């Protein structure tokens, strides 16, 4: 079989490693310029998907990110085989993305305000949530509770990872439980939904933010549009399951263009202060940190003891 090296697979006017066509307005965009513009089309404002490192670089103060639990890796608890064994799919995703799984978490600062941040990357197996993603979101939430700092989760996911079966489904329960405890303890949580946020991720932590933000035109929905259309055998309304649709129906607080996201988060974080910190700051007359450390009656709940159980 002759091998054809496709240096210029389509006529070659725009080498694909240098140019990208905007799927929305059809313009050819110079890749370097696109990256510089946070992968937003300068002509029509189409938001391309953002990789996790670019997202972190954009949102957080320079050099403030400290990744945690970077060593977590998926295993194959069901010995799942479809057309390709699950471990092979994982290995391929690792090679193409340079990531261990579809989410990273750590601590950092946004305009000087300390947060626990978890960011998903759609490039790793469609951002699907298996045990590792669920664990990272949960650890981020538990850490936010421990340290009493706001939690931010930036979602990009097709849903639960089928290859982990009901163990993937249980990540919905695990993450919802951790988020529910945050709410109980007065630690705020901002959910940022990017294209796409669907299925089990939308039906768990992504929907539960004290404030829900979304990027323009991001696909956000429970069931795939094909499933929805097939089930009801009728055409779907225009803009169905897009960020603006959710804003209109009351499930998203704001649709925020990527360029404004960092400032909007910083603005919100000024209001979203963990309840006790506010009280502590008043009581300790400006010395909020020591006031915090002195009074944390429920701290044991978020202690290392329970986290150990997750490793079993």
């Amino acid at each position, binding site marked *: 079989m002759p*091998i054809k090296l496709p240096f210029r697979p389509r006529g070659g006017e725009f080498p694909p490693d240098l140019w990208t066509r905007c799927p929305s307005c059809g313009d050819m965009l110079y890749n370097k310029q696109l990256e510089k513009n946070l992968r937003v089309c300068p002509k029509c404002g189409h938001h391309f998907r953002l990789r996790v490192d670019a997202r972190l670089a954009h949102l957080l103060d320079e050099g403030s990110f400290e990744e945690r639990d970077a*060593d977590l890796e998926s295993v194959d608890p069901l010995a799942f085989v479809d057309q390709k064994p699950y471990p092979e799919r994982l290995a391929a995703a690792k090679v193409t993305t340079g990531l261990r799984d579809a989410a990273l978490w750590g601590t950092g600062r946004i305009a000087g305000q300390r947060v626990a941040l978890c960011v998903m990357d759609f490039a790793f197996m469609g951002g699907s949530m298996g045990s590792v993603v669920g664990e990272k979101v949960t650890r981020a939430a538990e850490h936010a509770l421990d340290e009493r700092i706001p939690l931010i989760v930036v979602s990009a996911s097709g849903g*639960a990872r089928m290859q*982990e079966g009901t*163990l993937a489904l249980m990540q*919905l329960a695990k993450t919802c*439980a951790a988020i529910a405890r945050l709410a109980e303890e007065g630690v705020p949580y901002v959910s940022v939904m990017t294209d796409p946020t669907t299925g089990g991720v939308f039906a768990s932590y992504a929907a539960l933010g004290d404030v829900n933000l979304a990027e323009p035109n991001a696909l956000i929905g*429970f*069931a795939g549009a094909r499933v929805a259309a097939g*089930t009801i055998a009728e055409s779907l309304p225009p803009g169905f399951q897009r960020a603006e649709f959710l804003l209109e129906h009351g499930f998203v607080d704001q649709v925020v263009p990527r360029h404004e996201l960092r400032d909007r988060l910083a603005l919100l974080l000024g209001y979203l202060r963990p309840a006790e910190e506010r009280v502590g700051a008043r009581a300790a007359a400006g010395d909020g940190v020591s006031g915090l450390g002195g009074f944390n009656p429920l701290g044991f709940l978020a202690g290392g003891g329970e986290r150990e159980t997750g490793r079993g």
Partner: protein
Amino acid sequence: MADAPTAPGAATLDARAHAWERVRHARDVKRPHTLELLRLMATDVVELHGDRLFRDDPAIVAGFARLDGRPIVFVGQQKGAETEENIRRNFGMPHPEGYRKGMRLFALAERLGIPVVTFVDTPGAFPGPASEERGVAESIARSIAMLTRLRVPVVVVITGEGGSGGALALAAGDVVIALENAIYSVISPEGCASILWRTADAAQEAAVAMRLTAGEQVALGIVDEVVPEPGAGAQDDPAETARRLKPAIVAQLDRLAGFEIDELLDARYARYRAMGAFATAQPTGAPRPERPGIAERLRTLFEIGRITLGGPEPAPLRPQAADETDEPPLREEI
């Protein structure tokens, strides 16, 4: 793998037949559903209707009942026994208002200090536009979150189909009981097959791969107890099924009543906290290369070459950069 099937994705006939029989039983229209089971095993059943926000969802039933005199709040999906009722019940596929009715009842149970028993039997939450418009995902997430922190005991019974998030919305509790032929899965076997095998015909294979039978769910630690069904299945003898199920629920209610509520909540949190399987990577080697190596870049080139030569994959509609990320490398998503 020691137990690998002969060809990729081809489960053995035995395994397929076994798993698929469970799926067929779990979906049998003659199978007793939530209200039938309650009629057979409970007394003083009072159904309550409506979410106080939009409407009453007939796909979820909720209310009060007594099991051997003990009061419970029940919430469960309800399928119909024949076509007309099934259409009215939307084949047990709840809209968001169904889950919000459930949450209304959970809150009431907490205020009254009455334990909750949920009955899970749904192909999944309804995926249509009306359901999306009213926030079905939000209602599921909130229902799960609420159950994980509810300050009364929660006993979950999977009676038939445990279909994905729409099932889990009622299935986060202190203990999970399943009937012998119940199934529990992250997506329907047909849905899984059409995504991973590209054809719904591979549903039987998917059913095996997902380990969706009650017995396998026990092995995974997701179901705690399986109640055997009479004859060929619950549909053969609903009365006997209820007779076997009732003592299992009552025993769990009595056991859970012995705990302080904070103790119970910690145990409930720990139960879901421990679910999932992952490893900690070896710190050796360079796990995250900054740039793809030469071999990887060549492989990418060959891959594109294969596509331009008219391989089985459809050609991309636009030029693809080596680091193009806007198309998923695989189609894993649900």
